[in-house]
């Protein structure tokens, strides 16, 4: 298992430009190794920097924040350009405990000119590698805005909030009819009969119905991938892996 060293943190600052904001009572090295064992911070930051730095026109804000209690490790990489310059870039990952180790995909936005070039996939793959090193149990996401509600459903994230799923169902009831509506209702009914108030609603079963595409595009929900579930982990890994 990798142990973070003082030299690595110095390099993260000196060669990659990441500032460390330590709000804990421990040294950064001790805190990271105690609360987030296994992470190779320098490797992760180096990989993020190699793909994200070239697409910002100016110096980005790069910050690692450590907090305790409760233990939180926050990695932020962002550049906010003048309005309309099309250079804004934002990435944030937050590690915490709930009660097991989880990572929150708070946000990830790249400028239009840098999209569809594999940058998103590369970053997700680098992150996943560290989640495996750290034995992260769940990846959490807040799906919404633009088409996020549809895309993250299709990528296999499960919805955790019963009320949010019900809201989407109500929209579907307004907009769909016949067999399309029956499909949507049957998936919902089956899951919540088996798991009343369950927190792993299989959004992908909805997302892969053509009739749900537009409805999910306008939706807003919280989701997660359970990395302790071999199928969920393998499916997500297949998506972000370039070796496929």
């Amino acid at each position, binding site marked *: 298992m990798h142990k973070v060293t003082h030299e690595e943190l110095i390099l993260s600052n000196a060669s990659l430009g990441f500032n460390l*904001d330590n709000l804990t009572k421990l040294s950064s090295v001790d805190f990271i190794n105690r609360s987030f064992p296994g992470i190779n911070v320098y490797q992760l930051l180096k990989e993020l920097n190699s793909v994200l730095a070239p697409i910002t026109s100016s110096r980005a804000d790069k910050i690692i924040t450590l907090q305790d209690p409760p233990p939180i490790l926050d990695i932020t990489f962002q550049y906010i350009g003048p309005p309309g310059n099309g250079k804004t870039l934002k990435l944030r990952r937050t590690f915490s405990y709930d009660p097991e180790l989880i990572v929150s995909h708070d*946000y*990830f936005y790249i400028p239009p000119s840098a*999209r569809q070039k594999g940058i998103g*996939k590369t970053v997700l793959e680098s992150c996943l590698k560290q989640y495996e090193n750290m034995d992260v149990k769940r990846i959490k996401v807040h799906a919404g805005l633009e088409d996020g509600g549809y*895309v993250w459903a*299709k990528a296999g994230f499960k919805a955790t909030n019963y009320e949010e799923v019900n809201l989407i169902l109500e929209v579907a009831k307004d907009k769909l009819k016949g067999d399309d509506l029956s499909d949507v209702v049957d998936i919902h009914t*089956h899951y919540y009969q088996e798991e009343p108030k369950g927190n792993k609603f299989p959004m992908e079963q909805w997302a892969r119905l053509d009739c749900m595409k537009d409805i999910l595009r306008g939706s807003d929900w919280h989701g997660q991938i359970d990395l302790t579930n071999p199928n969920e982990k393998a499916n997500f890994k297949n998506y972000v892996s370039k070796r496929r």
Partner: protein
Amino acid sequence: MFPKDVDYREEAHIGEELFDDLSYELERQCMVVQSTVEKGIFSLERALKSYKVQKEDYDNFLAKQQYEILQKSIYGSSNANAEDLSSFSVLYKLFNKLVIIHPKNPFKKTLNEFQHALEKKHLKL
């Protein structure tokens, strides 16, 4: 530390990069068909129709899945190459396990004749 930013999320354009492999997308579509059928939500016919999957594509998906299961059961987690797996001896062993040992084996006579013929030519299964 930055405050949580409500104007940004894990954006859709990041996820869209994941869907560029059409063959994997078809596989995922088939996986959803399989899960809804296995869980008893839909009949196979309805699932294929609802998810717009051709029966032939679904059969190919199942065949690939079975192939991977067989590969793992024979070779464990190590990577076996396709030539090894499709070699005659492996197929013979599978056939033997599935059919020959069955008490009502309808192929017993044929197989005995086949083995006999091979032995005459000094070949062995």
